[in-house]
């Protein structure tokens, strides 16, 4: 159990090291979406959703280009690009949905 917890903690730390490269920008975009949702409601949800998708793809493109050398650090630890990006995308999108849900609840 202790070993499992240590592995989990280590994996999260490694993912966080990579996510730190763009967490500020990504969260700022989600925050902007939240504010717009608060202002205009469900009528803009589809637009905000696609805005988040497209900006995420742009971030992916730039990080993939400017941080491509750092991938080798993760490769050397057995973490492929897919295993690096998938949990980060899932977490980032969940954060976006959570922020929109909170905005809906407090509207």
């Amino acid at each position, binding site marked *: 159990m202790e070993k499992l917890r240590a592995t989990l903690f280590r994996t999260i730390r490694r993912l966080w090291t990579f996510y730190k490269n763009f967490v500020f920008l990504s969260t700022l975009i989600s925050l902007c979406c939240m504010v717009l949702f608060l202002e205009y409601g469900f009528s803009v949800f589809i637009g905000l959703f696609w805005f988040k998708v497209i900006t995420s793809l742009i971030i992916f493109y730039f990080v993939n280009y400017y941080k491509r050398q*750092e991938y*080798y*650090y993760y*490769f050397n630890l057995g973490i*492929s690009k897919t295993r690096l990006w998938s949990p980060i995308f899932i977490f980032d999108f969940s954060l976006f949905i959570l922020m929109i849900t909170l905005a809906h609840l407090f509207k």
Partner: protein
Amino acid sequence: MTHILEADSIHLEFKGRKILSSVYLKCETGKITGLLGRNGQGKSCLMNIIFGSMACEKSVRVDHRAQYALLKRPDLLRFQPQFHFIPRSLSLKIIFRDFHLDFDHFEKWFPEYTGRYKSAVGTLSGGGQKLVELYSVLKAPALFAMLDEPFTHLSPLQAEKVKDLLLEEKGNKGLLITDHLFRYITGISDLVYVLDNGRTHLIKSLDDIETLGYANL
């Protein structure tokens, strides 16, 4: 028990130009395998293909078992590319923990790092970063390690120490190394391949290096 890493049937082309076509390379535990070749002959590409970070037609095997992406198997192979690859914000403490390494051993070899355990790798000089990267890949537990230009950008004294470190580590794993400082490579390698016109040539004597047009001895 001896372990074997083999690579062959590799075909790599860039815009119709054949880079690698008839390659056979073998690396064994307990031995250092050197890879030489002029610029643009595909040495780094070959290492990336073996590692799985560059896609192309290939056959890479460890102990006769096909491996499609060794980058997912750090227990089998680690790779030091020729550029800095460790995120600059990481401290030596985290790096050594990630690679399961003992800082005291590193400090014994390189006393200039004393007191830098908690420093971020980005605060070190270019050569300093290179040494940390080299040591991490070289000493981390694995059957094989590939080093792309381990001697470049190091001072002569550091290069000598790296040479000794390689000789020490070859007892634990198989090493595949390439560098233009070919005298270091030929000095410590058990096998040397020269990559020329997309083919690997296993050299039998140092004269072959000159015959294959790589260097004047």
